């Protein structure tokens, strides 16, 4: 009961203090919101890029053209061998007839071009899909020596670029994300420090009245958490809107890539921002008040 009364007193004190210093409260909440929104926007863009790259990677196929006289058992064995690798998404067998159909479909507007063909010159093939460009590259090198393989087709430039983009995106994702989080920590910490600094006189008086460190620290700590929470909620709304907007823009710009809205990701992002806000608000207050508890 006493503990509840204590918590109620501290919480009440935090809310009253935040209200009575509302100019500082508004400024601090705005700064927290701004930094959290910046961080959230970055995470949204980073996520959209990651999804795009993943989709692009899935669309890269390794095409293995087969010798016409290849024994079906060897073709099946090769197909199974490829499927057994966990990096393989799918292996599709395209017969000579299907290949010709595709060619005809491609030139359906100009059928005269295919008139001179007396026989089907196209080979059967295995189309391998994987989300790992490096794996496709290694398979291409290995399979070139296989007697049932006539030729290999792998879009080298696309693969190499995708590998590079993946690496850069990963580096930027971690590096910039960590950097931005540090900047947010510093800016939010400074804003809270200013709030505490403006009330250092109060802390001094409380100390001289015999207040314990806990008594002084808790209202400030709760205020910091409150700043972080409100800032996180504001930024969550803005980031949520930005997330939907970014996806709409991407779908219009790159219509051939399916980039669907991921509500699980959005909820996870809001949860991360909220926890980050609470943690950073509480930590910022804790460290700031500590400076003035030396009287």
């Amino acid at each position, binding site marked *: 009961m006493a503990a509840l009364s204590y918590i109620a007193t501290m919480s009440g004190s935090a809310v009253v203090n935040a209200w009575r210093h509302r100019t500082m409260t508004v400024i601090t909440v705005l700064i927290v919101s701004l930094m959290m929104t910046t961080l959230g926007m970055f995470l949204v863009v980073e996520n959209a890029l990651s999804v795009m790259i993943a989709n692009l990677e899935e669309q890269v196929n390794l095409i293995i053209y087969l010798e016409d006289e290849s024994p079906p058992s060897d073709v099946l064995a090769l197909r199974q061998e490829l499927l057994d690798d966990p990096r393989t998404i799918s292996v599709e067998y395209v017969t000579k007839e299907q290949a010709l159909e595709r060619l005809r479909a491609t030139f359906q507007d100009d059928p005269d071009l295919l008139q001179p063909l007396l026989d089907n010159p196209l080979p059967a093939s295995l189309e391998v899909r994987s989300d790992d460009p490096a794996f496709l590259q290694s398979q291409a090198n290995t399979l070139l020596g296989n007697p049932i393989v006539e030729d290999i087709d792998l879009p080298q430039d696309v693969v190499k670029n995708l590998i590079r983009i993946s690496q850069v995106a990963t580096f930027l994702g971690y590096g910039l994300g960590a950097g931005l989080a540090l900047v947010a920590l510093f800016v939010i910490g400074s804003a809270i420090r200013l709030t505490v600094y403006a009330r250092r006189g109060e802390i001094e008086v409380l*100390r001289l009245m015999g207040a314990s460190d806990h008594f002084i620290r808790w209202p400030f700590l709760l205020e910091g958490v409150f700043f972080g929470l409100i800032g996180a909620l504001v930024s969550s709304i803005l980031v949520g809107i930005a997330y939907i907007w970014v996806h709409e823009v991407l779908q219009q710009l790159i219509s051939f890539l399916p980039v669907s809205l991921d509500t699980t990701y959005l909820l996870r992002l809001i949860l991360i921002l909220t926890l980050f806000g609470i943690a950073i608000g509480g930590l910022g207050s804790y460290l700031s008040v500590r400076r003035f508890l030396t009287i």
Partner: protein
Amino acid sequence: MIVLRNVSKVYDFRVTALDDITLSIPKGDFVFLVGHNGAGKTTLLSLLVRADRASAGVVLVGGQDLALLKESEVPLLRRRFGIVFQDLKLFPGKTVAENVALAMQVQGCTGKRAHTSAADALALVGLQHRASFLPGQISGGEQRKAAIARAIVHRPEIFIADEPTASLSPEAAWEITCLLMEVNRLGITTIVATHDKDVVDGFSRRVVALDNGRIVRDVQIGKFMEN
């Protein structure tokens, strides 16, 4: 009982604020600490609540050597005091009643009890009708009464007031000093630092005079200046 034995306080190895002070104040005593600006009055008071540490000598409060006090014990020491600061240091955003109740909350007394005690203390200083006012909405004399109420609400052992009558009219200064006498009559050891000659001369009490950090006079019933 407060005892200072050969106490000195030197700031930055140059400025001597207190120089070999020896002083004893029995429980329940009333002492005027007089002297000009810079005589060392505020420094002496700050040593008593461990807001500062003595450079040399021993400071004992209730038999407790303050030099040996752990940091965690300092709040407990300060709760035995009631302090009226020179600039009062009332919280401008809190009402008079909230300012007074805060001293009870600091002691660990929360909720209704803190507010009941605050109301009693305000009644004692005659300020109950200003309970819901902010400090900025009441007069200077009333602000001092509020500060006194905050200092005594938890019934401290020792009451310290630093220049409680500064910049008050003679009538208001007299009223405040009468209030300090009331506080002392509650059995609270009372130390009042002042350079208000009229106040000291008007009340026949113990006077400890400081000059350049040294005690130049300590008389049981004295005047501000004596030839």
